[in-house]
């Protein structure tokens, strides 16, 4: 009788480790697939980048970004740009899967479906971070503002993570509708409002050199948002792609 639980434990431990290993392998394969496609076509990144630059140029005329205005609106301009460029990327990345039947192929593969979600999300995050890594120096040069502050980079990482976590889930929902391209921003923006508010406020705090005590609540909010929505997406993604 005493042997039974031991045997059970052994079986579980054996099956757990390959599970984690396989999950990571699947994750890596999906991220690699997205990166390789992008390396060959470069359609997603170039579209996001050009669009982001255009948004900044439009802001330049719309807001008269003189030295005085820049001090207060830089954080806002940056985040609106990231959000718009991010929507383009999210839309394209999911539409690509849907149009060429790639998503069905992924779903047919005998892998954990949350690995598909995390793979797509990390891929999207990488694209978004690349765009941000190009936009930040460009903005710094164009408007002679120093944007290279470690705090600001942390905010951008946290904010983009939350944005992409929700965005990937919603784009996989939006591709299943008739009005998919139009629908994604409508679904996404009201949901990521907390991220946007917190990210803008925290970025502005770092850019203006505010006290860390004033910035901390916003950072906490970003972290909480990221954790809650990554967990929620992990739980519901199975239902999104179910046929």
């Amino acid at each position: 009788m005493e042997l039974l639980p031991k045997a059970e434990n052994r079986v579980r431990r054996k099956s757990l480790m390959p599970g984690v290993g396989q999950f990571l392998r699947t994750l890596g394969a999906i991220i690699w697939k997205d990166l390789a496609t992008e390396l060959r076509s470069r359609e997603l990144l170039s579209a996001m980048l050009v669009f982001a630059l255009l948004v900044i140029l439009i802001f330049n005329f719309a807001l008269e970004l003189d030295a005085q205005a820049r001090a207060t609106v830089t954080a806002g301009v940056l985040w609106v740009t990231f959000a718009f460029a991010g929507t383009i990327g999210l839309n394209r990345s999911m539409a690509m899967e849907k149009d060429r039947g790639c998503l069905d192929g992924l779903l047919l593969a005998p892998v954990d479906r949350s690995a598909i979600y995390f793979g797509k999300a990390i891929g999207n995050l990488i694209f978004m971070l690349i765009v941000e890594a190009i936009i930040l120096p460009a903005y710094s040069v164009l408007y002679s503002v120093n944007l290279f502050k470690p705090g600001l980079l942390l905010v951008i990482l946290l904010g983009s993570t939350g944005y992409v976590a929700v965005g990937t889930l919603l784009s996989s929902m939006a591709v299943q509708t008739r009005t998919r391209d139009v629908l994604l921003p409508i679904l996404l923006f009201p949901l990521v409002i907390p991220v946007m508010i917190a990210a803008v406020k925290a970025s502005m705090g770092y850019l203006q050199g505010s006290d860390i005590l004033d910035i901390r609540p916003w950072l906490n909010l970003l972290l909480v948002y990221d954790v809650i929505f990554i967990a929620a997406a992990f739980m519901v993604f199975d239902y999104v792609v179910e046929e």
Partner: protein
Amino acid sequence: MQSKPRLLTILDIVTLLLFVVAVGMVFFYAPLEAVMGQVQRVFYFHVANAWVGMLGFLVAAISGAGLLIKGDPKWDIAGIAAIEISFVFFFIAIVSGSIWARGTWGTWWTWDPRLTSAAIVELLYAAYFMLRQGIEDPDRRARIGAIYAILSFLSVPLTFISIRIFRTIHPVIIGSGAATAQGSFDMTTKMLQTFMFSLLTFSFIFADLLWHRIRLGRLAVETETLRLKTLQ
């Protein structure tokens, strides 16, 4: 088709009576507020409307979870019913707040964080309707609608927290408000009674409407099946 349940008829009558009493209490029982005057009476139904708005969104999120776990379409009917009702009530809360703000703050709308967050919540659920409209397959519509309802419900508290970190001029009557709030007041006993009674009344209105809307949803499903059968 089943006839209207007797309990529902009773609920209709009780709700109607409660509502008449609540209106009476707001206008004749609650004392006149010293500073703001008559416009303060908006407060009772304003908060009650917002309460129903939030209640419906809670019901929708629970129905969404129910649908995902059980897969029974009846949860979907309850979910859309709750959101439809709450959408309207929350809109009334915004409009009535606007009327109050005109009298107290001197403007219909300010970009106060609290008002902004209310507008965001309303837009969130407008997006929910658009999402549902775009999907034809009923099973998929139910599933994806449920997920969006749950996600929205998760983000609403965060939106409110992000708003709380700002200083707001919206008064907080229950609990402690910010020192910068304008138009705050202390409730007398009679005001508190009227306020609580309004909350109770509106909860009844919500339950009553929800029941009606769920029946309507079931009938819609029934007609749809009948129509498909006739077409075949």
